[in-house]
């Protein structure tokens, strides 16, 4: 597959994209130390700070969600590659405060290694930080051990929940508790139709035949539950929502947050059509879609496919979801 993208020197992808992004949204975000995306208007020192880390190449995630009511710092690595411990500890030092830091880490080998090392260093410097690991991917099976489950787009709504709690002035333990409750009641399943290319190497990140799809594929092209023949939107929707609904043990009367997150090349048209059947199927089970988003939060370059996300909500989580936030890629008034 020949890569056709608007890039310059592939060695400068991350620095150029961060420059462009922070330049476009300079009233909300700023770039610090080349790899830290921070709020242009920092929150008060008395509130819990929210820090995360991750590779680039998934824009708008993760840095698109830095701002009031969500993240304080996003530490950026390279394309599809976690940042090293030095930049992570730099972010933790920058956010050091008595109120403490909630450090959200997505379960991927590089992210976890780097985060663990940085947290070890932070402990030696008396930086108060609590680590929360997201692992909501149910592709390996809803009952698979947490360490086998990747952290996917679920981190984005989690940033919203935790960020709202922090903005309200809750303590680190309180912010952690509500974020962890959300963490345990969310699930994501991805599906892939067409591959993407890694913009540095130009290499296709996976192979799929013209008539195939793969449910459960990860956000760097890692394998899912296996290939199958193309299904219709309704069949795909049902296959996925059935598993997701089961994973969060949704039952009659429950309220869900549903997010359909396009992978980059799938049209909103397709996502709306899929969502239609998702909402219908849930209604048939007596389950309410309390809140929904159909958008592109965490992409995989030009991959065709999407991640379907659900979270079981309660009154407190809904209130936090509805609380104001002001970031470049999610704003709630």
């Amino acid at each position, binding site marked *: 597959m020949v890569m056709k993208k608007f890039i310059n020197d592939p060695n400068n992808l991350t620095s150029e994209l961060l420059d462009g992004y922070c330049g476009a949204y300079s009233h909300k975000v700023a770039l610090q130390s080349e*790899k830290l995306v921070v709020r242009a208007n920092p929150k008060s020192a008395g509130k819990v700070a929210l820090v995360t880390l991750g590779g680039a190449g998934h824009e708008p995630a993760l840095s698109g969600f830095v701002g009031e009511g969500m993240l304080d710092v996003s530490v950026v*690595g*390279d394309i599809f590659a*976690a940042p*090293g*411990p030095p930049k992570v500890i730099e972010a933790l030092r920058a956010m050091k405060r008595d109120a403490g830091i909630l450090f959200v880490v997505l379960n991927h080998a*590089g992210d976890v290694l780097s985060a663990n090392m940085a947290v070890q260093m932070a402990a030696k410097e008396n930086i108060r930080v609590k680590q929360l690991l997201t692992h909501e991917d149910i592709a390996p099976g809803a009952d698979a051990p947490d360490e086998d489950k990747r952290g996917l787009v679920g981190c984005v709504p989690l940033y919203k929940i935790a960020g709202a709690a922090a903005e309200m002035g809750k303590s680190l333990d309180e912010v952690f508790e509500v974020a962890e409750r959300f963490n345990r009641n969310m699930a994501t399943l991805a599906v892939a139709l067409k591959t993407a290319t890694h913009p540095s190497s130009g290499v296709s*990140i996976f192979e799929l035949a013209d008539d195939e799809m793969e449910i459960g594929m990860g956000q760097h092209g890692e*394998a899912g539950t296996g290939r199958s023949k193309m299904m219709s939107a309704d069949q795909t929707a049902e296959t996925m929502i059935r598993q997701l609904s089961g994973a969060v043990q949704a039952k009659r009367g429950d309220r869900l947050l549903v997010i359909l997150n396009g992978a980059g090349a799938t049209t909103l048209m397709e996502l709306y059509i899929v969502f239609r059947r998702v909402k219908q199927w849930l209604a048939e089970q007596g389950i309410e879609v309390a809140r929904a988003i159909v958008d592109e939060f965490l992409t995989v370059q030009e991959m065709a496919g999407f991640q379907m996300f659900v979270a079981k909500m309660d009154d407190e989580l809904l209130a936090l979801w509805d609380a104001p936030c002001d970031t470049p890629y999610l704003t709630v008034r």
Partner: protein
Amino acid sequence: MNIDQLKEKLLAAVAAVRANHEVLSRLDSDTGDGDHGITMLRAMKAVENAVHGCRDSELKTLLMDVGWAVLGVDGGSTGPLLGCLFLGMSDGVGNKSEIDCPGLAIMFQAGLEKVQEQTKAQVGDKTMMDALVPAVETLKKASQEGQSIGQALENAAQAAEDGALATKNFQARFGRARNLKERTIGFQDPGATSMAYIFKGFARQ
């Protein structure tokens, strides 16, 4: 081995990886996203810069500088793991300005232990450990047998290469490839392969 000789060995390791970075990317595209070669080039550039930039005369400072430089590479798992190896080697060398073969074995053992603080991966899990562990075991045995540093490193490099080749038959248990499960059998692990090139460079006379 004194500091000048250690610097030479580090630069030889850099050269060995550089000469084979395309092999690493090809191996990584079989079961990964194809960027291990590029990541290792950046890691080796960091090693090279640290070696040339080190004004200190202490072995431990040189290794600490190299370790921190590699940690900063932003290359996913490679940075922390390879960085820890060098940081551990820095701990292992203590205040010595020169090491003999037993000192070399102790240095690499400390490097291995620091990596093991961060990962539970073992031989057979299809990772860099499949090359690193046999290499370190070989160094320890070589020093007990009274081999010279040159002989010990040559044997260690062979053990690392054998370990990397053996990964072809294993199923990946760590990293992104673990999701492919049995589909990884038949493919050599890129992380073990780059570790083998590092030891190959160290063994160069």
